[in-house]
């Protein structure tokens, strides 16, 4: 017990807690959009793609910086995203198949190239995150991402929801659908970037999908998905960081495990969908 209190005093641990709160909230908030957009699978592919992108940048520049990592991740996701669209257009393969081919290839390439990267971090940290080693500079980036997400999503909530619901009708009503889609992409990529550090590319999709899914089991109000998702994401991430220290388990998997456990609990307690209630509605 005294050991835990001692750790609470450590700067690295406090930084990790703040990071978990910021990343958890941002990802939870954006998870509402991911749910409404039905794009979990696409995002999962993109998050895997970020690994080779970042590794290439590290190989070229020789160091790992936030700006470099961001550019690498962005370029790699764009490359895979556009590549899969091009393949879909010219063949009869569905886009999900093309995406699966591209992102697994890119991810394999990334893991392979990690061998040639000489940084202090090891493979495990690359793949599953290392929230305990975030710096003050990282925290500033997470804070900026959280602010941007909240501000832009609040300002444009109405046109965003119209776009997500039915883009054609929205466009005819004067919504700048194309810009709203760019904004959605930006929000998702930023959220992924933040969680890359916390849980790594493989598990980041969990942080970006589960909170909204949990909230959706309890409410029919669209707006609740975002704020509720933010709160659930924030609390889960912080809780996971706190329990991972005494239990001596890696924090990245701990965050996703907490979320997964919460989801199962929520499923059984949900007033609308619980299997214990009579005449349950089929959940999609």
């Amino acid at each position, binding site marked *: 017990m005294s050991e835990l209190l001692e750790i609470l005093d450590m700067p690295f641990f406090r930084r990790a807690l703040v990071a978990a709160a910021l990343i958890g909230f941002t990802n939870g908030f954006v998870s509402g959009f991911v749910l409404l957009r039905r794009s979990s699978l696409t995002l999962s592919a993109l998050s895997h793609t970020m690994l080779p992108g970042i590794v290439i940048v590290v190989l070229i520049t020789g160091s790992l910086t936030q700006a470099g990592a961001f550019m690498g991740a962005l370029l790699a996701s764009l490359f895979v995203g556009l590549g899969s669209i091009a393949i879909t257009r010219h063949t009869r393969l569905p886009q999900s198949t093309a995406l699966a081919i591209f992102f697994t290839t890119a991810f394999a390439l990334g893991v392979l190239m990690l061998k040639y990267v000489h940084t202090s971090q090891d493979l495990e940290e690359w793949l599953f995150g290392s929230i305990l080693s975030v710096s003050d500079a990282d925290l500033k980036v997470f804070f900026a991402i959280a602010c941007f997400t909240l501000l832009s999503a609040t300002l444009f909530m109405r046109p965003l929801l*119209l776009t997500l619901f*039915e883009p054609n009708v929205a466009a005819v009503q004067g919504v700048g659908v194309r810009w709203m889609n760019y904004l959605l992409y930006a929000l998702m990529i930023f959220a992924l970037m933040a969680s890359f550090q916390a849980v790594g590319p493989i598990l980041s999709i969990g942080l970006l999908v589960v909170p909204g899914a949990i909230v959706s089991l309890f409410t029919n109000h669209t707006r609740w998905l975002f704020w509720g998702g933010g709160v659930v994401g924030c609390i889960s991430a912080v809780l996971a960081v706190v329990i991972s220290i005494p239990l001596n388990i890696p924090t990245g998997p701990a965050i996703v495990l907490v979320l997964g456990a919460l989801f199962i609990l929520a499923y059984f307690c949900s007033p609308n969908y619980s299997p214990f209630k009579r005449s349950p509605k089929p959940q999609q």
Partner: protein
Amino acid sequence: MNKCTHSHTHGQTHELIIKNLEVAYRHNMVLEDINLHAYCGSSLALVGPNGAGKSTLLKAIAGLVKQRKGHITWSGEDNVQTRGGEFAYLPQHEEVNWDFPITVRGVVEMGRYSQLGPWKRFNKKDELAVERALALMEMDGELSNRQISELSGGQKQRAFIARAVAQEAHVLLLDEPFTGLDRDHTANLTRLLRKLAKENRLVIASHHDVNTLADIFDRVLLLNRRVVACGECQTTLSEDNLNLTFKNMANV
């Protein structure tokens, strides 16, 4: 922008003019050489076989598909972007995400975006427009608070028509508005479309039932990638014209 008040006491009308419109999806020509004049205060049915380009023509007018050639102007204006909200569009059923967590009232309230934009507050006037639209489509009361995923096909259709009505748009572009409606609601929608035309709006709708055409619409455009015929229902719906429209041109 000269927004229409729908009163037109001085007899002024707005017109939709389509000139030499051509639309293609990749290498498939979907619409060719389309010319059309339509005026507000009337209703026009688009009739043709599957794949004739009815939905595409509606989307082209709405500014949703790229045109390869030609012009579409509304009261003299060429630019789709500037008319924001003067057009209302009803998509086909399968294009909508019915799992979206939203109530019927929420859907209809979305129709007011044309007036409110991203930031303006929902006021009494908007409330009234939503309430009226819900009542017109008989979606008020308990039904208005239901999730759209819990509605039947016909009710979904009525919710979306109510959204278009709440928009109080000048031009209504409706893709198969009668799909899924039962007898009573078909009669109800017929009355509504007639009323909208009388209010000096322009209603353009694709329709598949040739027998009921003349009861609902003033004019008809027979379409099979090109305009086969266009005019008053009585004179245009001749046996020859219908045969020309529905003969197997789409598969050539």
